[in-house]
C-alpha cells in the first residue's frame, strides 16, 4: 500500500518535471537552463554519433565494406563532383547572359562558394515531427550558426546549432524554415517556407507581379550570413487569392531531402551575388522566365506549325495549311 503511494508520487513528480522543462524551453526559446542542457548533451552525444556513424558507414553504403583509403578517395571524388556540378550548372545560363551580367558572374567566381564539406551522420528523430540532420563538421572547421547548407542541386538548409566537431542543420522542408527567395530572371522577392517532404511554399510580396508555374527560385541572401543565389526549387502551382496582399505558390525543391549524404556548408558569403548562374537549365532552352508578356508566344512559336503538320496527310485540297507546313 505504501509502495503504491510512493509510486504515484514518483510518477506525478516526473510528469511535473517534464511539463516544467517544456514550459522553461518554450519561455527561454532555446536559451536558459534547457538551452544549456541541450548544448551539454550535444557536446557529449555529438562525438558518440560521430563514432557510431563512421563505424556504420560501410553498412550504410549498403555494399561490401570499403577500405579506409577507398572511402577517402570516394569522398574526395564526391567533393570534386559537387564543385564541378555547381560550376557546370553555371555554363548554359552564362552563355545567354548579357556581357555586363557575365562580368558580374565572373567576379562571383562561378559558384565557387567557400565551403566546408560534411557528411550526414544522423537524421532528426521523432516520426517526422522535425526535419533536421546532424553533420560531421563543427566549430573547429569554421561552422557557425546561421550558415547556408547546400548540395550539388541546391538549398538544403541552415545551421541551427554547432558543437566543436558536429553541427545541426534545419532542413529547408521543415515548417520552421523560412528564407528570402527571388524569382530567377526578375527581381520579384518573397518568402520561401518549408512544408514537409518534397514541398515548400513561396509567398510573393505584391499581387501585381506575374508568377507562373515553372518559375525558378533562388535565395535572396537578405538574412545576415545567408548565401544569395542558391537554387531553391521550381514553382508548381500558383494560388491567387482575391484581395490578398501576397501571391502564394507551391514549390518543388531541387534537393531530394530523403537521400542526403555529402553536403557543403558555405562558410563565408561569396564576394558577389551569383544571381541566377547556379540554376539548372530549363527544360525548353528558349523559355526564360521574364515578366514581359511577349516572351511566352515567342518562346512557344510552334502553335502555327502544328495545324499545318496535321493538315498535310489530309485530302490536300486546301492550299492554306500545306503551304504553311512546307514553308
Amino acid at each position, binding site marked *: 500500500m505504501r*509502495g*503504491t503511494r*510512493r*509510486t504515484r508520487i*514518483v*510518477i506525478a513528480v*516526473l*510528469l511535473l*518535471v*517534464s*511539463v*516544467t*522543462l*517544456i*514550459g522553461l*524551453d*518554450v519561455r527561454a526559446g532555446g536559451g536558459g537552463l*534547457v538551452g544549456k*542542457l*541541450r548544448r551539454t*548533451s*550535444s557536446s557529449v*552525444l*555529438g562525438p*558518440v*554519433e560521430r563514432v*557510431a*556513424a563512421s563505424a*556504420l558507414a560501410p*553498412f*550504410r553504403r549498403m555494399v561490401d565494406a570499403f577500405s579506409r583509403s577507398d572511402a577517402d578517395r570516394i569522398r574526395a571524388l564526391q567533393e570534386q563532383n559537387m564543385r564541378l556540378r555547381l560550376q557546370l550548372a553555371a555554363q548554359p545560363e552564362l552563355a545567354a547572359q548579357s556581357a555586363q551580367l557575365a562580368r558580374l558572374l565572373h567576379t562571383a567566381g562561378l559558384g565557387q562558394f567557400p565551403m566546408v564539406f560534411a557528411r*550526414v*551522420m*544522423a*537524421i*532528426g*528523430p*521523432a*516520426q*517526422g*515531427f*522535425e*526535419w*533536421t*540532420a*546532424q553533420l560531421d563538421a563543427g566549430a573547429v572547421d569554421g561552422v557557425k550558426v546561421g550558415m547556408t547548407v547546400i548540395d550539388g542541386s541546391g538549398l538544403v538548409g541552415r545551421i*541551427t*546549432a554547432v*558543437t566543436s566537431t*558536429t553541427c*545541426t*542543420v*534545419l532542413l529547408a522542408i*521543415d*515548417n*520552421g524554415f523560412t528564407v528570402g527567395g527571388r524569382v530567377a530572371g526578375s527581381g520579384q522577392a518573397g518568402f520561401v517556407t518549408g512544408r*514537409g517532404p518534397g514541398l515548400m511554399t513561396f509567398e510573393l510580396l505584391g499581387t501585381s507581379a506575374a508568377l507562373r508555374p515553372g518559375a525558378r527560385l533562388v535565395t535572396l541572401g537578405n538574412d545576415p550570413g545567408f548565401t544569395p543565389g542558391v537554387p531553391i526549387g521550381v514553382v508548381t502551382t500558383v494560388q491567387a487569392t482575391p484581395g490578398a496582399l501576397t501571391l502564394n505558390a507551391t514549390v518543388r525543391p531541387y534537393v531530394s531531402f*530523403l*537521400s542526403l549524404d555529402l553536403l557543403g556548408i558555405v562558410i563565408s558569403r561569396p564576394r558577389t551575388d551569383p544571381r541566377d548562374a547556379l540554376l539548372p537549365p530549363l527544360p525548353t532552352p528558349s523559355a526564360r522566365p521574364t515578366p514581359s508578356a511577349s516572351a511566352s508566344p515567342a518562346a512557344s512559336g510552334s502553335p502555327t506549325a502544328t495545324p499545318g503538320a496535321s493538315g498535310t496527310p489530309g485530302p490536300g485540297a486546301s492550299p492554306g495549311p500545306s503551304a504553311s507546313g512546307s514553308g
Partner: protein
Amino acid sequence: MGAAARWALTLVVLVVAAVAQVVLVDPLRLPGASPDLVLLVVFAFALAGGPRHGALVGFVGGLLVDLTPPSDGYVGVWALAFTLVGAGVGQLAPRLRRSVVGLLSAVAVAAGGSVVLAGLLARALGNHNVAVTALGRTAVAAALYDVLLSPFVVLPVFLLARRVEPAAVRERSDL
C-alpha cells in the same frame, strides 16, 4: 549489483538505443514512421521493474530522445510521453508477462499512444510539422514496426533487466 551500477547499465542501454535511432534507424526513411528503439527499451525495463522504475526509465529515456542531436523540438515532450508509457506498462507488467498476445498489443498501444501524445503536444506548442490528420497513420505505422521489432529489442533488454534487477520481484507485490 548495486543501485548505481544498475542505473549506469540502464543509462548505457538507453544511450545506445537513442544514438542507434538517429544514426541507424531514422536514416533508413522507412515509409510511414520510424521504429522507436528507446520506446522498446523503456517498455522492457518497465515490464521487468514495475511502474515506479518504469516511469523513471521512461523519463530518462524520453529526455534522451528530446536531447539527442539533431533533435530540435521542445525538451520534455518525449519525457512526458515515455514517463506515462513506463508507468502504464509497469502497472500492467504482471498481467503482460503472462500472455504474448497481451504483450504485443501493449507494445502497439504504447508505440501508437506515445506518437499521438507527443505529436499533439508538439502541435499544441506550435510545431507545424505535425499534421494532426496524418498522426493516426504515423501512429499505426510506428505501432506495426515496433511490434515487429519487439522480439529483438524488448526480449533481450527484459532478460537483461530481470537479471540485474532484484526490485522486479519486490515491486510486483506492491500492486
